[in-house]
């Protein structure tokens, strides 16, 4: 017995080995903690950008706009309109009148117009949330010495106005409505293309395809396509959907002529490009869902004399559909977050009107974030942070829907 223990192969240095084990265990745990810290830092960093103090300087001090001592807030409609007329050109006034008659506008709306067109607040400097919490006094001091005319205000860049306003080149009045609508339009076409084809391909591969070279090629090919960088799809979309199929994607073959469409760089082209991008993901997920339907169901169906398609349509698909939908939602959330291919396909970065048809120019939420992030001014970074929060909330909602769907309808056989 003693001899055996002395054998180096039965190393008994248990203490040392356990100590080594403990150290390594710490290392493994530490890497997990680092991962979680990274996620936390990412989220906190976004929060940090989206809120904070802003030093605003008005071009026209709102105090001077008082009529007979009545401040802006208490003025009547006539007084407000006269203030507006006094400060902007008659051409600009007529244009506003044409957009919506002032007689029909609400008082709040007219005041908003005055704030935007006459008072014109300008962001002189903005501070992050962290700075705003830890150095309030310093910020106040800095603001009063550097910008004596400016007012300091704690601003949440994320607000219901921000979500509801169209894009604008002024940081204070910019919003993401255009971008959100653009994302929705694009995703609509992505789903319309990718869902039927993806599910069709999955049914073919799982139910019909035999093991021959062609089907093996299709399978391998789908796996490889899933690994192609998204920007390559963008280049493909540029060549095929924007350039070659321009008559289709610009709508000219449907007799749709819009002076503002940028040739083939439209919602439709973007949707089709993203459709190709998420197709492999949808196929792979749908295949898994179909594979999970037990063979016994199919056999029972055949036994009753059903044809292949009847079996697929009435038995396989209804049982696989929760899984297929879950996979599709995940693919859609991937598509919503995609930026690079859309830049290449030709997203417009500065449009302030909402997309109205498949042949409209488009911008999407990630594109908007990209554009704001690349601008050097801090206030645009803050806008980007606010837009990121909107994007993450949308994605979170989609993922929650996917999880609910999976839990609600998952059946075990």
């Amino acid at each position, binding site marked *: 017995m003693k001899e055996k223990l002395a054998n180096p192969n*039965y190393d008994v240095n248990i203490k040392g080995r356990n100590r080594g084990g403990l150290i390594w265990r710490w290392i493994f745990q530490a890497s997990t903690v680092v991962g979680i810290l990274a996620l936390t830092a*990412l989220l906190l960093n976004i929060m940090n950008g989206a809120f904070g103090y802003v030093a605003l300087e008005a071009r026209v001090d709102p105090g001077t706009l008082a009529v007979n001592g009545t401040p802006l807030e208490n003025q009547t409609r006539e007084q407000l309109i006269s203030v507006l007329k006094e400060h902007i050109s008659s051409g600009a006034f007529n244009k506003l009148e044409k957009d919506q008659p002032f007689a029909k506008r609400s008082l709040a709306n007219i005041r908003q117009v005055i704030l935007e067109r006459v008072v014109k607040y300008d962001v002189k400097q903005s501070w992050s949330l962290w700075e705003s919490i830890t150095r309030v006094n310093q910020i106040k001091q800095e603001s009063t010495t550097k910008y004596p005319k400016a007012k300091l205000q704690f601003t949440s860049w994320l607000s219901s106005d921000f979500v509801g306003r169209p894009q604008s080149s002024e940081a204070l009045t910019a919003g993401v409505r255009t971008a959100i609508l653009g994302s929705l339009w694009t995703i609509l076409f992505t789903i319309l293309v990718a869902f039927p084809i993806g599910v069709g391909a999955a049914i073919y591969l799982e139910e019909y395809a035999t093991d021959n070279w062609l089907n093996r090629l299709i399978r391998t090919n789908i796996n490889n396509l899933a690994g192609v*960088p998204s920007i390559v799809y963008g280049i493909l979309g540029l060549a095929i959907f924007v350039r070659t199929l321009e008559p289709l994607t610009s709508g000219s073959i449907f007799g749709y002529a819009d002076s503002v469409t940028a040739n083939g760089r439209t919602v439709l082209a973007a949707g089709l490009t993203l459709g190709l991008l998420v197709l492999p993901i949808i196929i792979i997920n749908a295949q898994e869902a179909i594979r999970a339907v037990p063979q016994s169901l199919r056999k029972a169906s055949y036994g009753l004399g059903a044809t292949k398609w009847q079996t697929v349509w009435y038995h396989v698909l209804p049982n696989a559909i929760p899984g297929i939908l879950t996979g599709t939602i995940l693919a859609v959330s991937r598509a919503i977050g995609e930026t690079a291919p859309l830049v290449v396909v030709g997203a417009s*970065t500065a449009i302030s009107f909402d997309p109205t048809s498949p042949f409209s120019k488009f911008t999407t939420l990630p594109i908007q974030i990209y554009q704001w992030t690349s601008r050097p001014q801090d206030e645009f970074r803050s806008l980007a942070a606010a837009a990121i929060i909107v994007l993450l909330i949308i994605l979170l909602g989609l993922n929650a829907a996917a999880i609910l769907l999976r839990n609600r309808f998952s059946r075990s056989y």
Partner: protein
Amino acid sequence: MIKEEKKSNVATLFRQQSHDLHGRRRTGEAIIQGLLFFSGFVSIFTTIGIVYELGKEALLFFQMPEVSIWKSLTTTTWQPHTGNFGIWPLVTSTLMTTTFAMLIAIPLGLGVAIYLSEYATSKTRKILKPVLEVLAGIPTIVYGYFALTFMTPLLRSIFGKDVVDIYNTASAGLVMGILILPLITSMTEDALSAVPRSLREAAYGMGGTRLEVALQIVLPAALSGIAAAVIIGISRAIGETMIVAVAAGAGPNFTLNPFEGAETITGHIVRISGGDLSYDSIDYNSIFALGLLLFMITLTLNIISQRIVRRFREVYE
């Protein structure tokens, strides 16, 4: 009859399913089957489309008088407007961001995977895995924002503002590592948990500690899966675009200094195509050539990864 079965290829199978027992044609079934086959074939069209379009325009690019493949491969300036198309500045910066990403993602990814599969209780795993999935589901542009507004200031405060530029490859690469971490973790964890329990039990029975079992038994058994994960991670890092477009700098720069700005292949494509690109200009054609290069590199890596899994997989029954 046997002969019939032997040549059961697409055609005969198609016949069997689209005809009823009397051999009459089921038109509806046949049409549906055709449509389904077409859907399956769309993915092939996509690949053909990529290779054809990228190849065609890249060929046009190399036929332009300013461009020669030899010069591209031997010179180190990429300046389209002066007719210089040396590929190296773009390649070195791509390699640099990828290296930084992998320096983060491989050790951390393996650490997390080993912890999850060998150490964590099932309760911890249930909490941690969704966290990693969240990390994997965040759009890359958000990581770009993170790199520019968090990682870069962090690096600048550590190494000094004179040393670290506002745009630099180190920051982009490090954040890219965080992006790729969940990918490597989940693939590695799959590989580790595929190692049968009996192997672990046997090792414990021989007196191995938990660490010894993990590192000397389970890890080697799962090595092919881990190698595949690493290669897929590299491929993903090379093709990653938005982080580098935002944080790594605009402008090709032939340098090995990670604290300088340098444009990667993907970053360059995004910047060039950002404006309205006119067709058949040298810029337009150059992004196809770069896209083709990118496609070739990632495809090769993906195929290698699949081969590794297939060839070196240990099969336990």
